[in-house]
């Protein structure tokens, strides 16, 4: 099968195109997929994470994948972040140190992910932020990763990629999984046929969690949402045909469903706000 992938930005259209790729290629079994990028004029580097998740699902069914006819500028971006080296391309040095390379982690690789993040964030804007903002930014990224660990059931792992834009003082990081998706977990928990969009909105409300048992949940995504609001950043969550964008609420992808779940986070690295508690609350009276 030959699939022509168009321009991929961190937008609803970008996710629609990745979902269409999956909807066409999901039927392949022990075949060949030629992913043709000749019509792709732009590729947001961080979107290599959800593309990686989709391609991993396709490869999992014994299919061979080849990425061909990549335009030079896009080839350079995707070689610098290491994505294309998984498909036989030579690596290219990231001399500007602006990429967070494409990486794939297993669900129990929390500490490897922590090492990756620490190594990759050095010199990419976070040290310029106040110590508190840097700390909360890192917490936010960990929350996204841990959310995938806890809820995705993604046996193919978790896919991470990012890009730093020094002039705009923005850091984009995307974490995607190839798991069961948000809707299936929320449906099973609420015993209600909620749509993917409603399931994402439900999960973003403080206190809502599909966890049962002795360990509470329902803090992480709300924390993330509140961080994005205060930081002046951006957030998108895509799962199934649900598309959430901070500021625009929950909607749907019109053409197809994206497997698993993807969270796109854009952090404003020029942020100097305080993320401390109201001074009346202290370690002594917090309980």
């Amino acid at each position, binding site marked *: 099968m030959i699939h022509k992938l168009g321009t991929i930005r961190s937008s609803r259209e970008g996710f629609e195109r990745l979902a269409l790729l999956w909807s066409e290629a999901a039927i392949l079994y022990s075949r060949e997929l030629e992913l043709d990028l000749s019509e792709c004029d732009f590729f947001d580097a961080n979107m290599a994470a959800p593309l990686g998740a989709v391609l991993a699902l396709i490869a999992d069914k014994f299919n061979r994948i080849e990425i061909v006819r990549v335009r030079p500028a896009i080839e350079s971006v995707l070689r610098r972040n290491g994505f294309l080296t998984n498909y036989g391309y030579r690596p290219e040095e990231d001399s500007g140190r602006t990429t967070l390379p494409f990486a794939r982690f297993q669900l129990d690789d929390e500490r490897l*992910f922590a090492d990756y993040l620490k190594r990759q964030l050095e010199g990419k804007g976070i040290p310029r932020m106040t110590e508190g903002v840097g700390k909360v930014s890192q917490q936010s990224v960990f929350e996204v990763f*841990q959310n995938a660990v806890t809820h995705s059931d993604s046996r193919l792992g978790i896919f991470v990629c990012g890009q730093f834009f020094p002039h705009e003082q923005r850091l984009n990081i995307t974490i995607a999984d190839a798991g069961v998706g948000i809707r299936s977990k929320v449906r099973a928990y609420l015993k209600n046929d909620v749509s993917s969009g409603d399931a994402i909105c439900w999960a973003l409300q403080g206190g809502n969690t599909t966890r049962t048992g002795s360990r509470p*949940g329902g803090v992480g995504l709300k924390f993330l949402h509140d961080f994005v609001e205060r930081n002046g950043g951006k957030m998108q969550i895509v799962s199934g045909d649900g598309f959430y964008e901070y500021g625009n609420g929950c909607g749907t992808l019109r053409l197809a469903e994206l497997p698993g779940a993807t969270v796109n986070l854009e952090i404003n690295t020029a942020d100097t706000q305080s993320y*401390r508690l109201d001074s009346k609350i202290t370690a002594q009276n*917090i309980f």
Partner: protein
Amino acid sequence: MPETTTQEIIVRAFDVIGSPLGVSSDDGQKVHDKIAPLLREGRKVSLSFERIETIISAFLNAAIGQLYGEFPEDKIRELFSVRDMSPEDLALLKRVVDNAKLYFKNRAQFDEAWKEELGREE
């Protein structure tokens, strides 16, 4: 249950998990499993976050949040405290504590209200 002893035990999260990163539920569980038996014995416990660089809600939910399912709030207030936490981490702990209190109090009602809300939209 034994009487409350006055000597406070300091549990050092770093030593329990062997890392400056409190970024997993499983590591939070290890910390919880050190604290809970001491509280059950009526001992005063202070959880130190010295040398811990990053913590997330899943870690705190497992380490501290689940205590609210095992002990009454006043018992936790009387016996348990934290120390060496940055102001940003204290802000996250506050969210976790408030959420845990609700989680164990009115979970069923909360979910039922959501089901009704989602049902109305369809």
